């Protein structure tokens, strides 16, 4: 039986690269989707508010695991060719993060006082101008810390992508452990790699929070 060595470590590092790639896809995809859903959540149209609210409830109420199963196996059954693992995992994580980011950002948008909307409205600005020139710059300040905090959740949740056969950090660890049977060495290394990815993010998030609380509001 081979023992855990440099070759394995290299394999884990490459898998960690895939974890980062998958996190980036989920964050960017979920960010774009979530942004528009957050806007729909504060829209003047009752229909848009209702639909986006239902979407958020649905996504937040579904385990990510089930979401991944649905996309990977479900779409194959209704006739679409089985999706490549990266696409399926990316799509599942995108949907998942869009539901949470939309809700985080809705809160941030709504925490900007109503009087700011009103002041901009009284200067004859359109709703879009009010949003982009007055509300968003203030909401983004508030949103940075919780958004970066959520990024950590995304990184850790990419481990679930292993269920659709995607070889990211966790799956790579499992594969190596199957051949070496040195769970402590293997999974402690895996955990350390996750920590190396997540720690800078949470440190950054804490830093942002401190700065924004003390500094200009």
């Amino acid at each position, binding site marked *: 039986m081979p023992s855990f060595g440099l070759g394995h470590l290299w394999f884990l590092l490459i898998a960690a690269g895939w974890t980062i790639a998958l996190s980036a896809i989920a964050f960017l995809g979920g960010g774009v989707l979530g942004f528009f859903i957050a806007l729909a959540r504060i829209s003047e149209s009752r229909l848009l508010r209702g639909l986006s609210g239902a979407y958020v409830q649905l996504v937040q109420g579904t385990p990510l695991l089930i979401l991944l199963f649905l996309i990977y196996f479900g779409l194959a059954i209704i006739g679409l060719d089985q999706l490549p693992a990266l696409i399926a995992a990316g799509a599942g994580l995108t949907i998942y993060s869009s539901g949470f980011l939309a809700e985080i950002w809705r809160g941030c948008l709504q925490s900007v006082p109503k*009087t*700011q909307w*009103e*002041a*901009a*409205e*009284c*200067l*004859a*600005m*359109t709703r879009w*101008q009010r949003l982009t*020139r*007055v509300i968003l*710059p*203030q909401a983004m*300040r508030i949103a940075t810390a919780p958004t970066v905090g959520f990024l950590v959740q995304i990184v850790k949740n990419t481990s679930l992508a292993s269920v659709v056969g995607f070889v990211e950090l966790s799956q790579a660890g499992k594969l190596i452990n199957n051949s070496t049977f040195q769970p402590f060495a293997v999974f402690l290394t895996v955990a350390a790699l996750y920590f190396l990815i997540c720690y800078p993010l949470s440190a950054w998030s804490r830093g942002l929070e401190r700065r924004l609380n003390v500094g*200009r*509001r």
Partner: protein
Amino acid sequence: MSAVVKLTDVHKSFGPLKVLNGVSFEVGRGEVVAMIGQSGSGKSTALRCINALEKIEQGSIEVCGHAIHGEKLDKRALRLDVGIVFQSYNLFPHLTAEQNIMLAPTCVKGIGRREARELARDCLNRVGLADKAGHYPEQLSGGQQQRVAIARSLAMQPKVMLFDEVTSALDPQLTGEVLRVMEDLARGGMTMILVTHEMGFARKVATHVIYMRQGKVWEVLPGHRLNDPDTPELREFIGSDL
């Protein structure tokens, strides 16, 4: 003289609470009208109705040719003619004083940045804050913030200015500097409607004073006669102020 602002039998409720109960008055060009009265008498609501921030249920409001009560009201066109200043300033905290003033002229009227900056300097000058252009709102005192808010509104060159208790959050000294700016505006011929608790200012500057009580216009009198009202209610209200 044709009225710039004309309210006719305006009614407005918040749920079961009747706030405006048949309010009518007119404001002519260049006039300064001060609305006074107890809290809850409907004066702020009447002011907000003039700018279509509140919907009215009955009656009509005409402002610079815009029918506020109408179905086809173009709110943006209305807001180009009417400026409003709030009690809580409502400056944009992420922008400097100058940027606060430049924002609407550039994005609403499409004025170039260079010209907008000059306009901002000019407006800051008029409120005596030329040296604060680069300051953020939180670096300014309440009185200075309120003057920037007035400058921001002025930069849109409105035909009517509304002031909603603009000095209520300020101490007497800061109140004085804001009132001086408003007095200059009035002398410059600006049509102004202000909700205020500053009786001295109303007496000195207002063409007319409107005393609101229980959602109605209780008494209208020239500013200089504020010491000598006709109704006992206003006499009592003034008396309680001294």
